[in-house]
């Protein structure tokens, strides 16, 4: 599925290029109906993202995807669905906003302010998409490290060599995960250096080498191979921060009040909210530059149909956030959390490893390795498409922005600019 399909732009359909704005008169009732429908669609789509045990009854009851096992909240599969939802909403939004509209509305209040604000949010979202792309690259690195542990610990019997190898990989993985979160201002090279500290054996360099048969693994925490998170996720200049961008996107995001002349401020508000929601969720889940403290909540009013499922989702994700905060580590992506949990427990096992491993212990390890295998498989299958989808989102936003700008340009510009 190629992310760009040049399926002709909206420009063609409304032909604005030569200063002519086709203004079909959509009658008011039809307009209202269209808006109503748009909101309902958005609401339905977000309902599908809620975990099944959610108390909210479906608004219509005509949902048929009981067959579809609902994806775990914040898993890769869930995100793929979320991004799909975004893309659908976006298409419909553009249709509502542009097609058949009298484009002169765009240059009048309140759209003359709302649209630029929305476009500004889009720009920030584009940066976030780029940061997420880098973040996914980092998760790939983690996946490879986890795979090392899997390869090592799948072998029987469980012996020192394998445990040692797995431990190194998992330690690197865990260090990378925490570093990503905490060491925000460390220069990548420096960090690499620090993490690549080769702690020679406790004996010290000067002592003559001795053969030590009973060396415990923990005496000798050897090289951490590390690919460093910091440089992976630093997609922009140092000052850039995902959480600040999210905050900035939330600014001025308020539901329209009273009767406004065009009725278009609602869909613009809706789309902005969806955009911010999606970006907020991505930043919360995927490692990216300066994502800590992205706890910002989008203030959504409760009286609108479509905000309901979004508010519920936000609450659920907020709970996850709180759970995580105590442990204070990586993003909320379900797969990463599992990896982290399993990695910690396997490292613990490795720390206390003594040969031979009893049957019960071995079974326990085997179960955890199985869990890791499953996650690695999910990442293997899911990360590529997710990355493509993020890219598609990027492309779509770029296109839409260009289209909206063009419309605004044409109607807004009474060409008085002197060139020379």
């Amino acid at each position: 599925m190629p992310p760009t399909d040049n399926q002709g732009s909206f420009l063609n359909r409304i032909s604005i290029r030569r200063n002519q704005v086709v203004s079909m008169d959509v009658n008011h009732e039809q307009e209202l109906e269209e808006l109503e429908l748009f909101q309902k669609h958005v609401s339905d789509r977000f309902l599908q993202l809620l975990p099944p045990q959610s108390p909210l009854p479906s608004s219509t009851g005509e949902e048929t995807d009981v067959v579809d096992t609902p994806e775990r909240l914040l898993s890769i599969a869930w995100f793929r669905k979320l991004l799909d939802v975004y893309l659908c909403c976006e298409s419909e939004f553009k249709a509502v906003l542009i097609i058949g509209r009298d484009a002169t509305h765009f240059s009048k209040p309140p759209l003359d302010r709302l649209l630029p604000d929305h476009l500004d949010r889009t720009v920030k979202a584009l940066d976030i998409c780029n940061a997420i792309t880098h973040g996914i690259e980092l998760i790939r690195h983690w996946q490879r490290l986890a795979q090392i542990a899997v390869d090592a610990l799948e072998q029987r019997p469980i012996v020192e060599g394998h445990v040692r190898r797995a431990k190194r990989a998992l330690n690197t993985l865990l260090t990378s995960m925490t570093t990503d979160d905490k060491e925000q201002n460390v220069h990548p090279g420096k960090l690499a250096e620090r993490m690549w500290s080769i702690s020679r054996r406790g004996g010290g360099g000067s002592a003559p080498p001795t053969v030590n048969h009973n060396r415990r693994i923990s005496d000798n925490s050897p090289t951490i191979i590390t690919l460093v998170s910091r440089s992976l996720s630093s997609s922009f200049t140092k000052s850039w921060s995902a959480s600040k961008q999210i905050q900035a996107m939330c600014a001025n995001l308020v539901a329209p009040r009273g009767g406004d002349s065009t009725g278009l401020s609602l869909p613009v508000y809706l789309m902005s909210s969806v955009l911010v929601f999606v970006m907020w969720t991505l930043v919360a889940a995927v490692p990216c530059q300066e994502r800590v403290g992205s706890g910002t909540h989008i203030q959504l009013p409760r009286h609108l149909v479509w905000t309901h499922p979004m508010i519920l989702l936000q609450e659920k994700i907020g709970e996850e956030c709180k759970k995580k905060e105590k442990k204070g580590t990586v993003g909320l992506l379900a797969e990463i959390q599992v990896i982290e949990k399993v990695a910690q427990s396997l490292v613990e096992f490795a720390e206390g490893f003594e040969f031979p491993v009893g049957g019960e212990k071995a079974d326990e390890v085997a179960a955890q390795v199985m869990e890791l295998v499953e996650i690695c498989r999910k990442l293997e299958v899911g990360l590529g498409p997710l990355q493509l989808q993020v890219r598609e989102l990027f492309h779509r936003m770029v296109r839409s922005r260009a289209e909206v700008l063009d419309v605004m340009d044409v109607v807004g510009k009474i060409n008085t600019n002197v060139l020379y």
Partner: protein
Amino acid sequence: MADQNIKVDQEPPSVASQDGKLHEKIDRFISALNGDDQSSPPEITESVQTFADLFDVMIVEHESGSKRWIQLEEDASSLFIESIDRTAKLLKSLSRFHSDENYAAAINRLSGVQQRAMCVLEVEFKSIMDDYQTSYDRDRKNKPDEAKRKQLSSSSSNVQETPEPELPDQSESQPVKDEFLGYSDEMSSNLNKLAQGLISGGHETECCELYLFVRRNAMEQNLKLQRFEKFSIDEMQKMQWEPIEKEVVSWMKLFKEFSTSLLPSERRLADAIFSGHTTISDRLFSNLTRIILLYFLSFAEAVMLTKRSAEKLFKFLDIYETVRDVIPEVEKLISAERLQQLKSGASLINTIIGESIFNIFIELENSIKSDATKTPVPGGAVHPLTRYTMNYLKYACEYSDTLEQVFQEHKKIDGESQNQSNYGSQLARIMDLLDANLEAKSRLYKDPSLSLIFMMNNGRYILQKTKGTGEMRSLLGDPWVRKQSSDLRNYHTSYKRETWTRLLQCLSHEGLSVNGKVMKPVLKERFKSFNAMFDDIHKTQTTWVVSDEQLQSELRVSISAIVIPAYRSFMGRFSQVFTPGRQTEKYIKYQPEDIETCIEELFDGNTGQSKKR
């Protein structure tokens, strides 16, 4: 530096000193284990323990830092790798009987040793990988030892315990040009050996991660040293165009260098280190390329998303061309499928930038169309709009092939453009619009002669600029040039008629004589009005501007050509009518030579008193 005196050979080589006997024993044991007899495991020989211990010692030497791979003799490093291979075989054979307690213990012990040996390989691989000096450093400092020293003290060598012994005379004698990407042949062959060891020992993933990490850091470091900034799209929105323009220039340079020089070198490095493992080197190289290319493309994306304006055309074209040309360069090195995503990214950039370029032209059209400045340019000189437009187009025409491509692509996307099929017709349309606009501006002058001078000036300017730019000349074509020239001739003719025909009427011989007798009062009137009219023309038209020298002299010549002969003949015929002296002086103000001088002063743009510009 303290380690400078370490001599590798001095230390008694513990394992190397053992003759092959131990190894033979181990190998025999391995084949015994692999024998058909499955019933009961043979006794584990003493030699297995000895082998493990000796290998352990060898590893400890590396772990403690007292031995470094790069200093090892050929056979010592081979022995190390060999020991790993032997251990791997031994482990594999032993594992057949792993349920036996003794076997399990032996496996445990050997696997631990083996793992540490692999660690040593990893550490050594990483440390040699780290020991590059960036080409940037090398280029800047032609003194290799100085660069080396700087590099050692900088962060790239992370193993601080034992800085690589520096041998200044040696590094000076070593020709730097033998290295690529900062790796000497010796380094790359060692890396190759280590990589082989890691891969055959099952540590392919670790090895690849290390490689990717170091090379990626190296490339990023290189970008950083060359001041490549990773602007976010949001930041770029808020920046002024001028600094962005500068960034674009250096981006172009870096991007081209990256694709034509750095990438091929990276490819060769990956191929050299992972020789025999094409899949691995392919994957590593394309991952690396993907990551770095993403930075370059992100920059272009950020620029393309800035607000469109006419001044950005040229840099947009630069970006368009760079992206268009670089991708095929990269494609030479990577299989197309691995590049899929990047290609779609690049194509998005060029679609958007292409659209911007197209729209810049539409906007140029619109602004020419709507330029309605009401103040006429003094003296009928070339209008700033003309200058701006022509100079703009002149620069644009340096990109005419690319513009043609952009317009063709746009035509494909935008179905509605019928006549605006290509850049050539776009250009012609702009010229027409400019012409129409100038025509309207010429009407701002009250004096029709001045309007004509204005049209001539501007027309001439347009024609000259066009002829001076080969691309523009050929795009607009001969008919356009012919039309433009004939318009100019018409303006010229009209001007002569407008200004000079009335004056020439004063010099008409008709109506001056009745029955062969010159009527003096009429003649007096004629001279008087000629003088007044000529004075007036002279006074006004010396303030007019024709800055094109050729046009100026053409005008003067053609004016002289009609005025002077007529005046001469008029004088010749009638001057003697007056009484020489006072009367002659009163009516004959100008000698023909004076007229000529005055004509030479026209169109000088002289205002007020000052005669000289």
